[in-house]
């Protein structure tokens, strides 16, 4: 089980690094919003992993809050994208 947890943590870290690369490089702001959405999903996955490892349920509220923040953030940014390049 311990090895599985390290493998899952490693995979999540690699995915987060790739998403950060796209957030830095992204040609438009919408690409950056998309990459940050993926980072928010990875953070939620890491919260669940933390709950599984330490056998507690404290992070469930944080999980809902994180997905709410991701939703509000991406909708707000998409609302204010203009045509200027």
């Amino acid at each position, binding site marked *: 089980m311990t090895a599985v947890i390290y493998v899952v943590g490693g995979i*999540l870290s690699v995915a987060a690094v790739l998403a950060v690369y796209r957030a830095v490089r992204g040609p438009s702001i919408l690409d950056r919003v998309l990459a940050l959405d993926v980072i928010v999903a990875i953070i939620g996955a890491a919260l669940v992993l933390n709950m599984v490892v330490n056998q507690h349920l404290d992070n469930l509220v944080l999980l809902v809050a994180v997905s709410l923040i991701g939703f509000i953030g991406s909708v707000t940014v998409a609302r204010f994208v203009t045509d200027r390049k």
Partner: protein
Amino acid sequence: MVDVVVSVLLIGGALMSLAAGIGLVRFPDLLSRMHAATKPQVLGLLLFLLALAVDSRSWALVPLLVLCWVFQLLTSPVSAHMVGRAGYRTRHLRRDLLTLDELDDVVAHAAGDPAHPGSRRSPDAPVERDDDAS
């Protein structure tokens, strides 16, 4: 036995995140990146929450996890729709990669005869490019 199921679910969910990361880096334009980016938001979260439910070994947690997942299921299509529409309006897509653009006909129809009052105009059609994207 439970540990094996939990391990498979956790690794599956993590691979969804990895697929999203690779897709974000490798895919050529906004719309195909959106296709990759929605995997960890719905399926990855489902796998992780299933792992948590199996690991807790009780049914008491399940309604809370279902609520969490349904909330994500309701909000992620809305944000994806907003991002996709903003990308279409501001032309952040590569037209040579599209096989079919159904909205193009509506836009051309609405722009073609603006004087015709009875012309069908989709409320989604981006007629004026510099409006406030409401």
